[in-house]
């Protein structure tokens, strides 16, 4: 599904990622954990094509294709989804309009018929119900006035509607109370499928109590310094990241 090979990335002339190697097979969930400033968010953004990140070396293959050569909208339409750490507020655009535009843009890209208003409403109502989201959130402008939990749930709603092949969750647990965290995790788990992979980026282990990963990687100082199974997350919870600070330096 995803192959990251020797990836080096600089931001404003500062090297943030210093040679990442990571392979995710279809159906796998990988967690990337690490202290603040280790390059976790850079890894998330580089996957979706945000401006301001320069790849100086290495490559990223998605389903065998050069992901880095694709525009952000092309990546999305090909099945890459980023759940934002800080979802963006868009005043004046009703959430429903936004969701419908997104779904139909991706359908157009894939040569599928667009959903009309009725068809779309039917789909979105079903997803909203499954995720336990208030209908009223659909009418409001995208993320405007949403609480932290509502914003993250809205990300999950988008993910459920867009049905990506590869979902990247960037600190989806940050700022959530335990109920919201569970709701978000339920949304993610509902989407687990043999042909869908996920990259869960988090600082804390607690999200991984609810979304159990197949593999855990520790990112420190721009490198993956250790990889292991789901137990590695527990170990980190006990020991912290202190030991990796020296490894990375």
């Amino acid at each position, binding site marked *: 599904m995803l192959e990251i090979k020797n990836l080096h990335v600089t931001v404003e002339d500062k090297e943030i990622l210093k040679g990442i190697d990571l392979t995710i097979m279809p159906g796998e969930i990988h967690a990337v954990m690490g202290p603040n400033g280790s390059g976790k968010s850079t890894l998330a953004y580089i996957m979706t094509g945000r401006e301001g990140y320069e790849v100086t070396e290495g490559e990223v293959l998605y389903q065998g294709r050069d992901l880095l050569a694709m525009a*952000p909208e092309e*990546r999305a339409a090909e099945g890459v989804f980023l759940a934002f750490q800080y979802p963006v507020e868009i005043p004046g655009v009703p959430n429903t309009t936004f969701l419908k535009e997104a779904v139909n*843009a991706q359908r157009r890209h894939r040569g599928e018929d667009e959903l009309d208003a009725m068809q779309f409403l039917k789909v979105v109502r079903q997803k909203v119900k499954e995720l336990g989201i208030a209908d009223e959130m659909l009418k409001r402008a995208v993320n405007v006035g949403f609480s932290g939990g509502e914003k993250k749930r809205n990300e999950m709603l988008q993910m459920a509607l867009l049905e990506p092949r590869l979902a990247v969750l960037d600190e989806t647990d940050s700022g959530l109370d335990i109920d919201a965290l569970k709701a978000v995790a339920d949304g993610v788990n509902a989407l687990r499928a043999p042909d869908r992979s996920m990259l869960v980026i988090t600082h804390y282990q607690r999200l991984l109590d609810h979304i159990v990963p197949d593999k855990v990687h520790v990112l420190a100082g721009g490198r993956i310094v250790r990889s292991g199974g789901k137990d590695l997350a527990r170990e980190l919870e006990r020991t912290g990241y202190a030991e990796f600070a020296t490894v990375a330096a």
Partner: protein
Amino acid sequence: MTTAGAQPFVEQYGALKGALPGVGLPWLAELREAGLARFASLGLPTPRDESWKYTNLRPLEKVAFGTPNGEAVSIDRLPSLLPAGASENRLVFVNGHYRADLSTLKSLREGVEIGSLAAGLERSPETVAEYLGQIAPAGGAAGEQPGEQPLLALNTALSGDGLMLRLGRGAKVKTPIEVIFIGAATEQALAYHPRNLIVLEPESQAVVIEHHVSLGGGATFANSATEIELGDGALLHHYKMQAEGPETFHVSTVHARVGRDAHYDSFGMSLGSRLSRNEVSVRLNGQGANCHLNGAYMVRGKQHCDTTTLVEHLVPRTSCREVFKGVLDDEARAVFQGRIVVHPDAQQSDGHQLSKAMLLSERAEIDIKPELEIYADDVKCSHGATAGDLDHEALFYLRSRGLPEGPARRLLIEAFLTESIEAIAAEDLCPAFLASIADWLKT
């Protein structure tokens, strides 16, 4: 002495004065002569005039405008902003001439007078005399008052036809009164000077929609003037769409007097003309008087769009909200000049003003000049202005969900402008305004 730029218009007056509305009325002839004298001495405004610092009329001076004859133009389809049946009163003016054959007027009832100004001057000249040139004084010697408006003076001299609306005490006209101004020119450039008079006596209510369009693709200069008197407790919703052709000049001067607990609510959308200026002056002269001056504009190419407002708080407890939003592309320029004057007696005045511009090109420009003059101590007044590009974070967010850059940009621009439409009380009008935004974004 007549200035060079003014000379052609002064000559036009000589040729036209026998054919202007209300000919033969001595008071009106006097008003016109005073307007002409004033215009002749002031000349066309230049950037040396403080109020015209950012808007240069030189391109206007270079065009030789002839005098129009509205009767000769055939109109196949009326460009209405309303769905069929939504309006009972529609007045159509072509190059400043009233066209009864294209207009629909519901038979008048007691206390409701809707028609052309020329007809009003024939039917009840004494009523018109009471207000015309009184709400927007344009006579007198140059230099008499600071807010000199040479183009208003020119309009006063050459006033063509326009809307006359007079509602008696308590009269309410529920459906919108639509007034369509068509500028029709081909090779010969034409200038015309619409003049509107709206008098709402106490507790009366109306919705007026102005729609300015072009036919024929030629150059026109529409120099419009509107006087509005709102009696105590009156309510006027005043909407305007200016979608004239790319070769046109559009200048509109509005003067409104708002009485006790009366409300003047105006919204204008500008997307046409190579050069346009909307100048609105409101006198809040009764306690509890309130106004909304809102607008939106979309300009591109080398279009120039000027919004100039003056709100005077003259007595205690008056309020005003102004929000103007614009989108500028290419080398387009916009001007926003907003002046608020709180007079010494006007305690508890509440005045807020906001200009938000979205600049889509590095060569687009907006000049903003807010002016607050406050002579009372217990007031709430503020102004704010923003100018910037599209929100890059929002753009990336949309693209990351699969929207290509073009549609994503359009969605954001549309959202920015749509917010200003949402406050329109005449629901029948919203689809046309929304469609104008969508159309603009498509081209």
